[in-house]
């Protein structure tokens, strides 16, 4: 069955109908219930259009008009892997977990779903998150990382490579489940790399559950291929005193949108939702976050920077929702965009929704080109214009990357940023 399915939600639904008996968990009622509910959401809502407020700035027409097929990669195909960025790593090729390439203490979700019972689907939502519904309906593989209480699992790289050759667009929907027990620690560096010039859809969903006092550093590096469509969703829930420290980097893909739904459920939980988008000609990048302050005394920090070159379009949407119970919330959100080209466009929508009175919340946004005064300052000291520009842009991005405390994650991000800038400059 190598047919290309018809474009749009109908094609995906048809694929689900055909694939259903062979999908992992086909005979497990709780898995089947999750998939059916997701399929129902897709059937009812289809793909979002720009008329839906949350999708006003990102058009999924490219996704909706492409017919996708299944990936046909042999399970033991030799793949040259990029240099590792962490001591241990887990590898997925075209959406399939590769035990032979993996040395990290993780399990394949596709091989054994029973270990994920009670976790899978417990944090994710499908009814109002269309891409998560698509993933839930069709996921075939992914990893399960379960760090026991009080254990420090060090740094793990989660590498997902898509090989998109020729004109046969593939769609893959990896699903990852991460759970940290009380006081556990993990640094997860997620890399999405596209190879080849073809079009494809990479639609990962990550569910994260952090028990009391757990600490997760989550660096996400998206370096998809030039025609790739990257639509990813993170759902994270932090219990009392837990920290979710994340950084999202969009540096590739034709169309990318990453959504993060983070809920601070216990007192004194903390979230960092930082990120950078590096967009060049023909790219569309969208960083959308929803942060729920659902318990008192929590704090959140968010700095997202976008650099736009060529005819590119950047989107930032960040919503902080402070529930009535969440007294003494401390929330900060900053969104900055730097335009390098007269054809670039930035759309920014920071948003505060606050129902508690004893809070300290602020957000800021700035949009502009390189500061003339700063350029002048450097040039007056004999630095050539091009170098001066480079220095300022690098400094702008460095500031974002510097928010990441963990050194391994920070280095991986800095390398990716430098790689992008070398290509553009």
């Amino acid at each position, binding site marked *: 069955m190598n047919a290309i399915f018809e474009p749009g939600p109908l094609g995906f639904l048809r694929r689900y109908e055909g694939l259903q008996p062979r999908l992992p968990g086909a005979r497990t009622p709780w898995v089947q219930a999750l998939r059916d509910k997701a399929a129902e959401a897709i059937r009812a809502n289809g793909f979002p259009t720009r008329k839906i*407020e949350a999708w006003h700035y990102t058009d999924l027409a490219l996704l909706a008009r492409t017919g996708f097929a299944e990936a046909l990669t042999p399970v033991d195909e030799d793949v040259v892997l990029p240099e590792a960025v962490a001591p241990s790593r887990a590898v997925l090729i075209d959406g399939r977990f590769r035990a032979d390439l993996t040395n990290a203490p993780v399990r394949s979700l596709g091989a054994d779903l029973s270990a994920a019972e009670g976790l899978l689907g417990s944090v994710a939502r499908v009814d109002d998150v269309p891409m998560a519904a698509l993933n839930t309906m069709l996921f075939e593989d992914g990893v399960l990382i379960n760090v026991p209480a009080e254990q420090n699992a060090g740094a793990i790289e989660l590498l997902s490579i898509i090989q998109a050759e020729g004109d046969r667009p593939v769609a893959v929907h990896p699903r990852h489940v991460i759970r940290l027990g009380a006081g556990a620690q993990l640094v997860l560096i997620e890399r999405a790399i596209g190879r080849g010039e073809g079009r494809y859809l990479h639609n990962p969903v990550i569910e994260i559950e952090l028990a009391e006092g757990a600490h997760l550093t989550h660096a996400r590096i998206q370096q998809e291929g030039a025609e790739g469509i990257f639509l990813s969703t993170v759902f994270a829930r932090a219990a009392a005193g837990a920290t979710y420290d994340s950084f999202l980097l969009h540096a590739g893909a034709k169309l990318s949108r990453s959504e993060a739904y983070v809920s601070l459920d216990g007192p004194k939980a903390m979230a960092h939702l930082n990120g950078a988008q590096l967009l060049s000609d023909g790219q569309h990048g969208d960083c959308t976050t929803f942060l729920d302050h659902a318990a008192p005394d929590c704090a959140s920090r968010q700095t997202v920077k976008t650099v736009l070159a060529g005819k590119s379009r950047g989107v930032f949407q960040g919503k902080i929702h402070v529930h*009535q119970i969440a*007294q003494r919330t401390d929330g900060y959100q900053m969104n900055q*965009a730097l*335009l*390098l*080209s*007269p*054809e*670039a*466009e*930035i*759309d*920014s*929508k*920071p*948003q*505060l*929704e*606050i*129902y*508690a*009175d*004893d*809070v*300290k*919340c*602020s*957000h*800021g*946004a*700035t*949009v*502009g*080109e390189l500061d003339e005064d700063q350029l002048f300052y450097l040039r007056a000291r004999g630095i050539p214009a091009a170098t001066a520009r480079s220095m300022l842009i690098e400094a702008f991005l460095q500031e974002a990357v510097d928010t990441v405390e963990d050194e391994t994650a920070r280095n991986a991000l800095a390398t990716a940023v430098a790689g992008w800038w070398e290509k553009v400059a």
Partner: protein
Amino acid sequence: MPAVTETIDAVQSVTEGAYKYGFETDIEMEFAPKGLNEDIVRFISAKKNEPQWLLDWRLKAYAMWLKMEEPRWPAVKYPPIDYQDSYYYAAPVKKAGPKSLDEVDPELLKTYAKLGIPLKEQALLAGVEGAELDGERLPVAVDAVFDSVSVATTFRARLEKEGIIFCSISEAVQKHPELVRQYLGSVVPQGDNFFAALNSAVFTDGSFVYIPKGVRCPMELSTYFRINAKSTGQFERTLIIAEAGSHVSYLEGCTAPMRDENQLHAAVVELVAMDDATIKYSTVQNWYPGDAEGKGGIYNFVTKRGACRGARSKISWTQVETGSAITWKYPSCILQGDDSVGEFYSVAITNNYQQADTGTKMFHIGKNTKSTIVSKGISAGRGQNTYRGLVKISPKASGARNFTQCDSLLIGDQCGAHTVPYIENRCISAKVEHEATTSRIAEDQLFYCRQRGLSQEDAVGLIVNGFCREVLKELPMEFAVEAQKLLQISLEGSVG
């Protein structure tokens, strides 16, 4: 205004046959039948003796409205409005003028007194025969809208000397049709949004201002709007045109007596500023907000927009929104002319069950256009206050500059404060900055005031006034004093 009286009488005799059950002339009001259909639109147009083009314009708007959906995106909740359960035309019936204020309906006088209208002006507004004003002494010209029909216009002579036209829009339709036809709907087209379409179909009155080239309007122009009759919707239409090099400051004050039923208000305000012209539009809105349980109150769904058509023109909106059960309002500026300037200063208070979704839109089209947005939202009781604003910069608006500051203050833990700014930039040399903060009144600030002998309520009033100072200082003097009082009154009962 004899012209209007005659018009009404004439049309009444023509149309009485068709609407014989429709006139409720019980006390002082005259109604069109309840409900909305093409005949009502025709009725209003005929009542106002309008030319054919305006009737066609209204009918086109009505046809558009029928196909439109009520917006659901604002962060406000209210039961569905039955547009057929409202009166779309209500006018005070003209009688022979009273001989003195003693003969004027005391209820009417009470309303005026509450609004603080000076006695002499009251006499004039109530149509007392022989009442005259010495134009030099009073600095404010008033065009009062009592329900739908503009009751009186003062200072006409003084303004006419400068060539300024300040009259009701119905009168402008009769006397200056060419101006009205040229500009009506040129900033807010009929199909702009649901409520603007409704207004375009059934607007009954409003103010018209025309400032000729190079004229600096010698006084503040002011309109007191209010809604008085039970179950009447208010559909004012205001049009202000400032020709090249002119300057005008316009004040709009709104009050409404207490009513139980929810009332709909869907006004449209259009401003046009040519080269080097300046329009300053200030609003103090304190319509009935509903009672402490959230019963009643005005639904205020207003479209206000100004076009800076000329180079170096400037439009400045200042609003103090303390009233209404629901406010849905985004005074906007279209900055077309190079170097034009748009400003928006706003204070919005929601107490008890009030809901406000308000902000502004700044469209930067011309080169070196600048806009400033300062919004102060205060939530108390169970109020919900949303700032929603758009700054849009087109690719050609090189050198455009925007600065936005939104601050929210929360009083009590049952209310909400929300900020939804949209920034859309397609111009590399533009600079956009946005800042927003949300906080509550700090205990130490309160303690400091209380220690110096201020009551809790006075202390809150003082702190709130300080919080709003940047906006209040933009108001003309007469309004600034009233606005400060209003802030305090609006927050009554919110501090325990």
